[in-house]
């Protein structure tokens, strides 16, 4: 057949149906589509309040071709815990239970339930869809909003930095963690598959730019996501059984072979206040992330 190779790599079949309510150029939508391709039909998705509550569409139709439960905002990981235990009781042991939650539902209101499920070691894949603010309610800051970003509740730019959720989840000693980006769907696909092959609680942190929330034109979603990676603001990696590994292209960027951070920042209207000292602090945030990873890698190689 003459179909593109990547089509056969990730499969042609779609479980995410068009005619949904995501905004033009929605990054989360790219993520959802590829998540569903990777987890397949023998899966159950639990989703707390957020953009996906709307994306799922209007009853009695659903955008989702697999069983899907909307949950209370702070509850997705706990609902998933209940599902996995029930499936175990019912002898349906081959069904993948997956959470798809936004940054608000993960960093903030859903954090206790996430931490609880991770600590209990429930056999769940938790995918954090991070668009760095409460977008569905109209762009309010969350614990994931980066320093300097404008939101409707940080109208002169956020003064605080972004919570390092990956380190927090790493401290839960779960068997698999990864970051991913909607600009690298094959990497995301592989990580989802990898996570599903491991028993226990797995966590994937997906960055998905939001055109209306980040203030960039809708055709630039993938390019913004790519610039985040190429400038080193977003680092692709995975941590399997405690061992950290950088993934391409981030694996070539330890020694600062990165685009200037400004290349990423200047594409987005939300960073219009990110200048001067605030911008310098933002860059130091990026450097600190890389330094921490460097240290981890050095300790590992010892």
């Amino acid at each position, binding site marked *: 057949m003459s179909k593109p190779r990547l089509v056969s790599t990730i499969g042609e079949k779609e479980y995410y149906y068009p005619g949904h309510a995501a905004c033009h150029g929605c990054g989360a939508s790219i993520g959802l589509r590829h998540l569903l391709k990777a987890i397949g*039909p*023998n*899966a*159950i998705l*639990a989703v707390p309040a957020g953009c996906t*509550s*709307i994306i*799922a*569409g*209007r*009853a*009695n*139709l*659903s955008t*989702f*071709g*697999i*069983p*899907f*439960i*909307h*949950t*209370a905002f*702070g*509850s997705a*990981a*706990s*609902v*998933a*815990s*209940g*599902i*996995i*235990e*029930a*499936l*175990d*009781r*019912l002898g*349906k042991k081959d*069904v993948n239970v997956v959470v798809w939650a936004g940054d608000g539902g993960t960093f903030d209101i859903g954090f*206790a*339930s996430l*931490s*609880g499920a991770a*600590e*209990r070691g429930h056999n769940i894949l938790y995918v954090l869809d991070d668009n760095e603010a409460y977008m569905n309610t109209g762009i309010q800051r969350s614990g994931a909003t980066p320093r300097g970003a404008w939101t409707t509740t940080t109208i002169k730019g956020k003064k605080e930095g972004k919570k390092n959720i990956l380190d927090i989840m790493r401290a839960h000693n779960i068997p698999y963690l990864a970051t991913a980006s909607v600009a690298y769907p094959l990497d995301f696909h592989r990580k989802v598959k990898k996570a599903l092959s491991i028993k226990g609680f797995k966590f994937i942190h997906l960055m998905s730019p939001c055109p209306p929330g980040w203030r960039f034109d809708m055709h630039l979603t993938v390019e913004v996501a790519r610039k985040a990676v190429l400038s080193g603001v977003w680092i692709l990696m995975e941590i399997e059984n405690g061992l950290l590994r950088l993934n391409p292209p981030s694996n070539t960027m330890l020694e600062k072979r990165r685009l200037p951070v400004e290349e990423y920042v200047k594409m987005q209207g939300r960073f219009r206040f990110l200048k001067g000292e605030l911008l310098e602090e933002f860059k130091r945030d990026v450097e600190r992330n890389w330094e921490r990873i460097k240290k981890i890698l050095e300790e590992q190689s010892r």
Partner: protein
Amino acid sequence: MSITSRVKKVLTGNHATAYAVMQARVDVIPAYPITPQTTIVEKLDEFIENGLLDASMIRVESEHSAMAAAIGASAAGARTYTATSSHGLLYMYENLWWAANARLPIVATFVTRAIGPPWNIWSDHQDIFTLRDSGWILFMAKNAQEAYDLTLQAFKIAENPNIRLPVGIGYDGFYISHTSEPVEMLAQDEVDAFLPDKRSIKPLLDPSNPYTIGNLPEASFNFLIRKNMWGSMESSIDYIKKVGYEYYLLTGRNYGDLVDKYRCEDADTIFVSIGAMANEGMVAVDRLRSKGHKVGHMALRLLRPYPEDEVIDSIGNAERIIVMSRAVSMGKGGILFTDLIDVVYRNRLNVDVYDIVVGLAGVEVVDNDFIKVYNDVLDGIFDKRETIFLMGGKYV
């Protein structure tokens, strides 16, 4: 070992409940500790660890997550149980409504306890009454035997495919949860025969039939969903009575009556109360009857759906009703009173109704309190339009 023949054991209300849950062979128990509910969950954990109950205990990090996990488990088709009290109930509140609206047949025990601040672990009924509008079918037990019996019946009611509503069993913290009394338990095979096959619970989350639960509907469709829930609630009354009657045939204990009437037949005055204090009300009735007063007592065993027909029937030709509520709707009145008064109005019953609030924050309510109120009502000292607060034999 499992209970192979009927046995009478001296049990606390909490342990009686735990035995019923074990005998119901639940699949999943997500729970979080709170006084005075805790010993239910501890006992269930012990049953699981000792191999008496083949179930998953999910030791969640909060009550909000307890009900969330119960939602997940029940939606996937498992027989699911949890228990809580007071602040725990309030913390899981959002998900309690979620469970009802998603039509999930979860069974829960609500060991009633006051709400703070100030901190208070003693019983009043303020917590369970926050659920009266939620779509949970709510029972109130007045002793450990009822706690056991109603727990078994609850699974059967909740899982009826034409009802599919969560069922809660309330009883007073400490008065019932922690005091021991003889409880007759059914043999396991009797319970197995009484309850439906737990694998007949329709899973809403099933890869072979991929539904989405909870997508945004048109408002009019949403209205119909709510109306359908109302219909299930209303029509559940007949089924609840049927299950109660079936249970009566099995045990000789009468649950066909949703209102536990005591000496109401020729009464001109009827007390209304629920839970542990109903026992005091019945003692008061005996004492007043022995002096020639025509009084009776009705204990509502079912709070929601409200057993209106039976309440009317129990009122009969009584001239006055004295409602003793252990919970108050701030700015309105005793909650049992406000529940009852619209029945009186809608049915144009010619009866005086008195609104007495007692026992808040666990203040003890005894037979003398009922008798004092009765005497004062006869003496005409109350303005019927007022909500009266009686504490330790004194109006406050």
